[in-house]
Structures are given as structure tokens and as C-alpha cells.
């Protein structure tokens, strides 16, 4: 097979050009850099969200938050997607900086921690403003790049992994066996969330962890692992903890095929719409909403406030420069109200309340 491929590669250039064309068409439709412009104010900085992709609900919602904030201040808004490619992420940002001449506020979820440094340096050099979220090197600090590197926001997986475990145990009546689905083994959020689960288990000796498996954030794998558990442990399974909502929903489907959906509580994390609906249907016991809508809008808002001189980043305390955001814990108790205010309607956020969700300085 391989040989055939190379044989055909030696064909005249014309075909290769067609191929390139085809690849380019593919690239366009897979990696769309969606640029939407609304409201033109010359003194206004361009607002930029740089995220992994639009193909996952999380970042899609992030983008909506960004759009909403941009609309509220009437600024140009640009979405850049990295598609998991660090080089693309960094070079797209450099391009937008060049295009705007530095009059730009960037809210970025760097594809990988090391990417944050070149991004921050490029912004600093051009005199723009940047807020990073989730990923950055531990020794890269906003206060070393005053005033351009406004803030870094992250969420600790530990307390929420633990909170979900506790919600699960509560739904189980405080005792029984559970199984747990982890994310990619080397992934930081996956590790933190698992650490939270472990803490909760240590505090609840009546709950027994029957088995832990990694399903790599994949619904298909989660379904298969849950199926195997149903064979192995049968009725011993009193609850299922999953490190994200996709895997939790797949576990619910495995239970459904077994006729047990709704009887075994399942928790996830991320707060996607289908998970909230599953909580409402009584098939999931809880999830945590990071509120990507807030992340996408507020990240820009913080940068925008700094850029427009509403506050001076250099004068802010360190817990406003590197802080943990606050997740929303959703269980059966508050699912309906969360659904009504955040999912059915576009959330109404006060974009000027920039420090409202600070829950402590990030610890390294």
C-alpha cells in the first residue's frame, strides 16, 4: 500500500496541486477562523478569543460569551481556533496583532502551557492586552509583564472532583461501591479531578472504589468500559463518577441499554447542556459548570477594562492577577433554575463585575 502511495506521488506536479487544493478546502472547513465584525469604533480595541475548536460544546459556549461581551461594548470581535495545533495558535495571534497594530485584547486558552510565553511576549511588544486561561508555565507571571499581561484564570480540578464525588455519595445514601472513569492519564485536569475523588473517598470509608479506568475523554470508550463493569460487578455498582460530562452521559447510555438508567447515579464535570438535562431527567446526579460563557466574555472584559484605562493592572493585588475562577455546582436541587437562566436563555452577566468570581490566588 505504502509503495503505491509513493508511486503515485511521483506523478506530475499538476495532480499534486489539485491535491493541495483539496487539502486546502479540507483545512478551510475543518479549521475555520471565524471572523465576525460588528460595531466599528476606531478607538476601540479588537477583541480576540483564541480557543481550541468550535467542535466541542465547551468552547462553542465560550465563543458565545465572547460575542455577547463584544456586542455589549460594540467592539470588533475575532475568534481564532488552534485545532490543537500550538504553532497555528501562536502564529494566528501574531497575525492578528500585526493586523490591528497592537490595538487588541486577547483572551486565550493556550493549546499547551509553553505557548503562553510567546503569546504574552508578542502582546507586550505590540502594546496590546492579554488574559490567559487554564494553561501557562508556572514561572510566567502577569506582574512580570505590566501592564499588558492583565491576568491568568484557572480552575482547580481538585475541589470540584471532590464536590462531585460527594454529590454522588449523597445520592447513593452514603455507602456502596462506585466505579470511576478518568480522562487522559497525563492530562492535568484529569489528574486534579481524580485527586479530588481520592480525597472524598478517603473521607468516606463506607464508599468503596470498585475500579478506576481511563476512557480518554471518549464517549465510546466510556461506554465500553461501563459495559464491562456491568458484567464484572453487576449490582455492586452503586454509582459512577466520571471526569467529564461526555463520559458520564455514555455511562448513562450503557446503563440504559441494561435497563438501569436512573437507578444508578452518575456524575460528570463541565456542565454541558445534555448533562444538565440528564440531571433534570434524574439520570445524572450532578455536574460542575465552569461557565465557559463567563470565561469567554469575562476574560475579554478584564482585558478590555485594563485597555480602556478603567483600572491599572500593576496596582491590582496578586489574587486578581493569577486566580482560580468559581465553578457552579449543579445537582438536582438547582438544575432547573440553572437550566432556565443559563441554557434556555442567554445568561445575563454583569460584565463589569470583573472580580466577582475570584476564589483565591493560584497555588503552584
Amino acid at each position, binding site marked *: 500500500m505504502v509503495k503505491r502511495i509513493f508511486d503515485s506521488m511521483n506523478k506530475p506536479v499538476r495532480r499534486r496541486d489539485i491535491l493541495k487544493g483539496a487539502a486546502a*478546502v479540507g483545512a478551510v472547513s475543518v479549521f475555520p477562523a471565524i471572523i465576525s465584525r460588528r460595531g466599528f469604533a476606531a478607538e476601540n480595541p479588537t477583541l480576540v478569543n483564541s480557543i481550541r475548536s468550535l*467542535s466541542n460544546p465547551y468552547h462553542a459556549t465560550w465563543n458565545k460569551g465572547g460575542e455577547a461581551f463584544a456586542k455589549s461594548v460594540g467592539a470588533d470581535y475575532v475568534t481564532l481556533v488552534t485545532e490543537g495545533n500550538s504553532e497555528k495558535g501562536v502564529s494566528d495571534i501574531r497575525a492578528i496583532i500585526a493586523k490591528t497594530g497592537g490595538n487588541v485584547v486577547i483572551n486565550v486558552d493556550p493549546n499547551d502551557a509553553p505557548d503562553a510565553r510567546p503569546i504574552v511576549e508578542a502582546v507586550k511588544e505590540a502594546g496590546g492586552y492579554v488574559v490567559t486561561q487554564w494553561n501557562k508555565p508556572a514561572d510566567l507571571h502577569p506582574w512580570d509583564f505590566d501592564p499588558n499581561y492583565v491576568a491568568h484564570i484557572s480552575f482547580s480540578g481538585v475541589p470540584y472532583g471532590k464536590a462531585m464525588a460527594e454529590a454522588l455519595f449523597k445520592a447513593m445514601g452514603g455507602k456502596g461501591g462506585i466505579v470511576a472513569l478518568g480522562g487522559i492519564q497525563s492530562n492535568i485536569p484529569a489528574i486534579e479531578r481524580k485527586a479530588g475523588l481520592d480525597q472524598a473517598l478517603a473521607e468516606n470509608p463506607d464508599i468503596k472504589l470498585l*475500579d478506576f*479506568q481511563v476512557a480518554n475523554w471518549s*464517549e465510546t470508550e466510556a461506554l465500553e468500559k461501563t459495559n464491562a463493569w*456491568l458484567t*464484572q460487578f453487576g449490582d455492586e455498582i452503586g454509582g459512577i463518577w466520571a471526569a467529564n460530562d461526555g463520559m458520564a452521559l455514555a455511562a448513562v447510555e450503557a446503563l440504559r*441499554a441494561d435497563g438501569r438508567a436512573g437507578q444508578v447515579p452518575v456524575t460528570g464535570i463541565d456542565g454541558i447542556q445534555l448533562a444538565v438535562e440528564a440531571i433534570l431527567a434524574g439520570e445524572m446526579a450532578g455536574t460542575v459548570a465552569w461557565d465557559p460563557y463567563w470565561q469567554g466574555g469575562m476574560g475579554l472584559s478584564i482585558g478590555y477594562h485594563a485597555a480602556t484605562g478603567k483600572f491599572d493592572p500593576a496596582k491590582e493585588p496578586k489574587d486578581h492577577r493569577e486566580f482560580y475562577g468559581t465553578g457552579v455546582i449543579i445537582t438536582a436541587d438547582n438544575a432547573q433554575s440553572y437550566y432556565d437562566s443559563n441554557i434556555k436563555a442567554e445568561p445575563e452577566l454583569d460584565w463589569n463585575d470583573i472580580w466577582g468570581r475570584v476564589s483565591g490566588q493560584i497555588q503552584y
Partner: protein
Amino acid sequence: MPPSVMPTSIARTGTRVMTLHANAAKSAVAVPKKTATRRWRLASWAPVIVLVLLCAVIAAINPNFLSFGNFVRIAQAAMIPLVLGLGATFIILMGSIDLSLEGVLTLSAVILSMLVLNGANANDLGLLAIPIVLLVGAGVGFVNGTIHVRLKVPSFMVTLGTWFIGVGVANALIGGTAIRINDKLVRALAIARDPVIGFPWGVWLALLCFLIALVIQNYTRLGRYIYALGGGEDLAALSGIPAARVRIMAFTLAGVFYAVGGILAAAQLGLGNSQIGLGRLFTTITAVVVGGTALSGGQGGVHQTLIGVLIVVVLSNGMVLMGIPPSVQIGVQGLMIIVAVALSMDRKMMRIVK
């Protein structure tokens, strides 16, 4: 035209072995008859033996493996890889490769979820959505085949492109969210079971696909020509086989099977999203190769793929049942591929390995 003049003297010459002296190239393939027969049989039966051994080992460690409930769960886990594997087998038999599987599956699942009763729009086409989705699969496959043949682009590159395009279009259609499927009949494929054995209907659908594939492989010209192309494009042309048409038809057929896989995946997870195909390509190619269909083409078949799928599914089910640590599991799967390829390849046929 029967040769009526047929002297009896032919009968006296026994079975002969090819001589080696005249042509260097032949020396690589001149295997005494007995050895060749034995090799071939071993290659063909090895997957079955592996499957039986695997089941025996897992059952010995965890007797729950043999429970009826697990039997059904394995069937359920195998239905999607089987349907995908059927399509991929035809392509691999031709000596080509089809990477568009995840793209077609994702696109099909997303389109299905948007056409039947769902949580995002007002559509409610019911079962009518299924032929539409199958047509979409066939269309992508047809495009794959046509570009591959007419523009002479390697199948590897074309299908890599359509993989991304498929996922990209799915993305564009639903903007990154997931659409819940509320159609009872579609969900029934994964949830409702037949009253006799107790398999989900999706398993029966997959088995029906298998039978259709078996008939296509063994009883149609298309199936025969696919083998012939895999045996050598030159030879196929020599026998007057319309190679281009056969290739396009094979890719189209594969697209239909992937679309069925998309329907089953959407039914199983109860939703359509653009990540639904993730990781399917690896599992499918593994199953096809483990089953004994050679990546070099011409050798194997959908019956082998059925065994390969069962090996892969039983192994991943069994690794959980046996309590193998997650970090080891992926390594075991990789090892399995290497062993399977090593077992199934007739090295005497190969002069150069690339």
C-alpha cells in the same frame, strides 16, 4: 470450445515444483506445495484460535465473562466495529486504505440526529432519515473513489481529506454542540431487544450487514473483482476488469457501511456530536488486520473481519474484567496488532517490506 484432442500422455506427469534457475524473481516465491498449503491454513485459522484462547483465558480469570449478560454486551460492543470493518475490509482487500471512516460516521450520526425527532430542531422524519443518511455515506464514498481513480490521488490522501471534511461539515452543521435523539425507533436499535435471544436490534442490523457483505464478497462480480484488484492491478486489467469502476463502487459501498455505523453510534449514545467518531478508525483497522486481511490486499475477507472484531472487543472487555491497569491496556492493543500482522503475512510473498 472443448479441446477434443487430448492425448493421454498428460496424465502421467505428476505435480511439479517450479524450477528456480531461469528467473531470479521466481526464486522468492517457489515454495514446495505442501508448505504453502500449511502456511495458508495457519494464517487463516490463527485468528479463530486466538479468539478461542482469549475467551478461555478471560473466562478462567473471571467466570462472569461467560454470563449471558456479558455475551449480549460483547455483541453490543461489536456491532459498530463490525459494520465499519465490513466497509474497510473491501477497501483493504483492494490494497487501498480508507481513512474517511471517522468523517463519514460523524457526518452520518450528526445528520441523523438532526433529521429525526431531536432536542434541537423541529424535524421528525423518523425512519425516513435512514435512507437519507445512507445516501450521504454513499456520496462521500463515491467522491473518495472518483477522486482517487480519476485524479490518480492515492487513496490514503483522498480519504484523509474527506475524513477532515466530514468532521468539518458536521461541525458546521451543529456548531460544536451535541444533539439529543428523542426518536423512539432509532433509540430502539440500541435499547430494545428481540424477544427470542435478547440481542439489541442494532446487533441484528449489524449481522444483516455482515450477511449482505458476505454475499457481495462471494457472489457478485464486484466482490470477485475487488479480490482481483488486490491481487494485482495489472492482472486485473489483463482480464478485462474495469478497475476504475470497481474502485469507485468499492469506496461507495464502504461509505454506506460507515453510514450504518454512524446510525448505530448515534442510536447507542442517544446523540449526535462531532466527536462521535473519535478513535473508531484505529479500532476498525486493528480489527480488520487482526482478523487476517492483509494490508497488501487480495487476501482475507469480511468473514475474517468478523473474527477480528470479536478479538478486539473481547480483548478490551476482558482487560477490564481481568483488572489489567489502564496504562497497560493500550500497549496490549498495540502489541496485538504487531502479532496479528506478523502471523497473517505470508512473508515468502514479499520481496521488499516498506
